[in-house]
């Protein structure tokens, strides 16, 4: 698709739909202009080379400032002063704050991701319509742009923060260098399991990641027809293994090297010896 392509229209029912549309656009840059059910503009999602830079929703204009102020530990007056200074310097606010030492680049990225995910959740709360407007790539720094999978996981994490926190802990202690892991939640309200936490470098497209979540849910459900509920699955193919298990609130799936399943089973056994409930798995 070239930058002169005719604008395309989409229907959005969820943040997942928005992320899948961004993935379909592949390496394009531009803007998804969002309209609500009444066809009134409600916001935009800005894309740079297939990555999400920014989402803005009507009513959330002040939100990024609040998020940055919290991370910078400054009050609103000080943030106002910084806004003014950055306008004088003619720099993007985030980069100005990093250069001034007010926030770290990690905190800036975190604030941008949170703002983007919150805006996306608001934009897709109800059925919405999106038009794609291609543009030439801008000057967004790649380190402050996001994969769709990252944005989608954050959307869900803001809805279930306790589950997300536990899932992140489980992923951090389970997967090492060269591995990747993802935690999913499933509920009757959602047709497919959706990611809530990620570690390492999972598949970059939303649909590929969700296919893995679906595989894990299906395999675990099948295994439970002849196994107990705390089942662990490992499949090996060529030089890697897929693993899957369920914790108290999330389904974990990941990819490791061929030694990964043995390491995870050993970890599970040690946790059981320490008296942790089924090594953290469902009983």
């Amino acid at each position, binding site marked *: 698709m070239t930058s002169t392509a005719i604008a395309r229209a989409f229907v959005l029912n969820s943040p997942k739909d928005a992320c899948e549309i961004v993935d379909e656009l592949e390496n394009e840059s531009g803007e998804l202009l969002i309209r609500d059910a009444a066809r009134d503009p409600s916001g935009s999602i800005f894309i740079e080379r297939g990555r999400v830079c920014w989402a803005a929703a009507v009513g959330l204009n002040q939100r990024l400032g609040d998020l940055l102020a919290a991370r910078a530990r400054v009050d609103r007056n000080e943030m106002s002063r910084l806004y003014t200074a950055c306008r004088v310097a003619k720099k993007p606010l985030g980069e100005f704050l990093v250069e001034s030492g007010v926030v770290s680049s990690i905190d800036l990225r975190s604030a941008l991701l949170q703002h983007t995910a919150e805006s996306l959740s608001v934009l897709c709360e109800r059925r919405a319509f999106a038009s794609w407007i291609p543009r030439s790539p801008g000057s967004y720094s790649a380190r402050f742009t996001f994969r769709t999978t990252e944005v989608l996981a954050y959307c869900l994490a803001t809805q279930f923060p306790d589950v997300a926190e536990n899932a992140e802990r489980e992923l951090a202690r389970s997967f090492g260098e060269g591995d990747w892991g993802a935690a999913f939640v499933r509920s009757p309200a959602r047709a497919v399991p959706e990611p809530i936490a990620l570690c390492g470098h999972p598949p970059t497209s939303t649909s590929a990641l969700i296919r893995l979540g679906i595989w894990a849910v299906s395999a675990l459900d099948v295994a439970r027809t*002849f196994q107990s509920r705390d089942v662990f699955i490992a499949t*090996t193919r060529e030089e890697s293994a897929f693993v899957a298990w369920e914790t108290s609130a999330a389904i974990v799936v990941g990819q490791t090297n061929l030694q990964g399943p043995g390491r995870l089973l050993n970890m599970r056994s040690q946790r059981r010896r320490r008296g942790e409930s089924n090594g953290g798995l469902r009983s």
Partner: protein
Amino acid sequence: MDRQIDFDGSMNQALAAYREAAAVACVDARTGMLLGASTRGANFEDVLEHAAIGVSSLCTAPSSRGDDESDDVDETLVISDAWTHAFARVRDRPDLIVVGMAPGSTNVALLRKWVREVADRVGASTR
């Protein structure tokens, strides 16, 4: 034409050689139908049959190409406190899978090794 293979006989021989296992079977990977099986008691037959039915889900994984297809996997382990199941796809006969089961406390590596050896012998007998 494929020569007749005594799957039941092969499974009986395999189970006799590995005391820790409770059951072993050779399964049609596409349908989950048991081609031959051996168990140490009738109470293991149900568990084995359900494991066989599950092969199409448990012995495939999303493709590495990023498309909607699934790829065959070489081996699968399904482990819980109750049971350990090891599945091995027969080399050169991807339509055949051997599944062995043992109590959850079993040595997983040894079970896996034994199931792979059984699958290799099935592969040799089909050539």
